[in-house]
């Protein structure tokens, strides 16, 4: 990541935000101009979505803080030691939440401001309204500044999704290769498994900003959320299959060879739909293959050709293969419905390398 370029642009954006905020406060003759200027700068973030998220959180936390602070201040009375004590409690909580939750930090800072003004005998509902008004103005100015000096679009979600799709495919192929004759490309499997474990966390963090990145497209936000959920589920099924096959006995599954291979191939070809420009509906095919596999396993178990252990193993494998294909089908359907400029990976980005 080129942090130099990001920091230069953010600095420029901050300068523009201050200039705009100064202009607005003079135009509207705001009494406490510094609040608007401060907010305009501190809610700026590296991406458009994060800036909006911070602005929204700041306004919401300030509103809640003013209301709660006003109530607590009335209850606490005018005893100076109580107010100083509450000031210290607010500082403690603001610091505690710093770096963990911006909303909670701002909530406690706002209550702190209420008590500070109360100590100075300046607190009134008018002050609360002024702070709220200035916070909203500051937030709007910050968003306007991101229009003038636009930040980079957040593309982490796009990268995460594409990574997880590729890793899930590789993981699934390697898991199935342990029980049926398939070519799985062994070299990336371990790295992919590690990546599958860690990417889920970053995916969630980046997905949390996605609604703000697409704030003007609520339908797209819902579809992206579904895609993220299904991608996580896809990864989990692939991992669970990898765990299961560690205890499978391929030689005992030989009587089921043709059915198992057909189901595995159908599931793999379903995951390849993630990398296809014109995806076909593979879910029904996987379902059919897995039904046939389970039926055949049941017959063989009744005739004593395979044991109950193998039947249950097949039952698990079939269940997860069907779920994998269902996840892929939903991801592909959502991707098809999203606009071309949405921050989601295109089919070509999901191609497994090698």
């Amino acid at each position, binding site marked *: 990541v080129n942090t130099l370029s990001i920091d230069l642009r953010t600095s420029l954006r901050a300068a523009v935000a201050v200039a705009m905020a100064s202009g607005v406060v003079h135009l509207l003759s705001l009494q406490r101009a510094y609040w608007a200027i401060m907010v305009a700068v*501190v809610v700026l973030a590296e991406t458009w979505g994060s800036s909006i998220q911070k602005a929204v959180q700041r306004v919401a936390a300030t509103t809640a803080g003013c209301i709660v602070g006003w109530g607590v201040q009335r209850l606490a009375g005018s005893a100076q030691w109580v107010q100083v004590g509450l000031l210290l409690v607010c*500082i403690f909580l603001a*610091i505690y939440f710093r770096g963990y939750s911006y909303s909670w930090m701002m909530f406690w800072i706002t209550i702190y401001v209420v008590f500070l003004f109360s100590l100075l005998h300046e607190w009134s509902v008018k002050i609360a309204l002024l702070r709220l008004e200035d916070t909203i103005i500051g937030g709007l100015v910050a968003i306007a500044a991101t229009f003038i000096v636009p930040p980079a679009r957040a593309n982490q979600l796009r990268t995460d999704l594409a990574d997880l799709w590729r890793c899930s495919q590789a993981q699934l192929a390697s898991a199935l290769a342990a029980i049926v004759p398939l070519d799985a490309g062994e070299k990336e499997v371990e790295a992919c498994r590690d990546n599958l474990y860690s990417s889920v966390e970053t995916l969630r963090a980046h997905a949390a900003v996605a609604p703000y990145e697409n704030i003007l497209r609520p339908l797209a936000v819902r579809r992206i959320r579904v895609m993220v959920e299904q991608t996580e589920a896809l990864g989990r099924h692939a991992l669970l299959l990898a765990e299961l096959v560690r205890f499978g006995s391929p030689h005992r599954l030989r009587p089921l060879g043709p059915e198992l291979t057909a189901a595995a191939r159908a599931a793999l070809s379903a995951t390849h739909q993630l990398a296809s420009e014109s995806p076909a509906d593979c879910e029904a095919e996987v379902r059919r293959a897995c039904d046939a596999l389970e039926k055949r396993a049941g017959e063989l178990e009744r005739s004593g050709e395979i044991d109950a252990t193998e039947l249950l193993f097949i039952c698990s494998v079939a269940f997860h293969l069907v779920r994998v294909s269902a996840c892929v089908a939903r991801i592909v359907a959502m991707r098809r419905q999203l606009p071309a400029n949405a921050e989601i990976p295109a089919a070509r980005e999901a191609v497994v390398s090698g």
Partner: protein
Amino acid sequence: VLVNDPGFVRVRHATRTIVSVAISLVCLHPLGNPLLALFGAFATAAFMQANSGVTIRQRMLVMSAMGAGTSLLVFAGGFCHGHRVAAEIFLIVAAAICFWARHYVPDRNLFTLYAFVLAVLAETDSGPWPQPLWIGLVVLSGLPIAFVVYFYIWPPSFPRRFAIAVRSFLTLTARHMNGIVTSLERRRRWPNNEKDVASLRATLAATDTLTARMKGAAVGQAADRVVRLMRRVVVCFELLEESVEAASQRELNDLARAVAAIENAFREARASFLTGPPATEPRASASGQVAELDPESLRDTVAQDFKSIPDHARDARAAAALIEAGLLAARLQELRVKIAIALRDPAFNEAR
């Protein structure tokens, strides 16, 4: 607190910040000027947050640079008070500088913005000369207070805090396993562990933030290994959610022996998370030690119970789900052993 601050790092830091603010207020109180006391206290709290860096030397440098830079900025801001054009130009430049300064902060933390907030307040509230100088000096006075409190009073040992955070994580994991054991004991539906997984994930994320403070050192590599294992523990719980969905849809009474075996497996796994990794001797639980789980024997127990049910085909998915749960219980215990081994890394013990 256990979930979001498992190493109690944030509680300690917030407490120390309050101590530094109180010291600052006590020191500046004799000046008899509430505005100066307020600036001093705010600056002290702000400098306490300027602690980015891996080594202590780096952190000292960051805090000192922040203190000196903020004092200069605040002095300049106070100096511009009353001159509209100068003040506006100053604020524009100050905002750009504060964001640019972030480039030189090791973890690109945005505490540099506190300098901007203090500068805006100085520009607004400062009076005529020599008030800007006084404000600049009281802000600078926050630096030695923050420096002494941060580095010499109850200083954080991140490897130690990390070990405490891992223990909190293990305790939470055991607690969540308890929910699974209880529901199996009472033949109830499997508990919805979505909330439990979310809290484990939050604990993991909070623990992971501590590894950034140890990067580059041997202890940092050991910590990274532990976090990777913890991540696998969390994913095991998520996988459990996937696998038990089918089992919860059916009365488990038909598979009583299988359920009892899985229940016992989770009890053993929980014990290993609470008391430490299992002994290598099989069936050690009889002698009071935690037994090592064998996934294959668990699988066979469930399969035998399944086979003994007449017309057992309808129970296949429930039995398969129980096998998956058993595998995951064994996997969890295996991960617990690996975590214990990773925590025994000499680098960790030296750092403690």
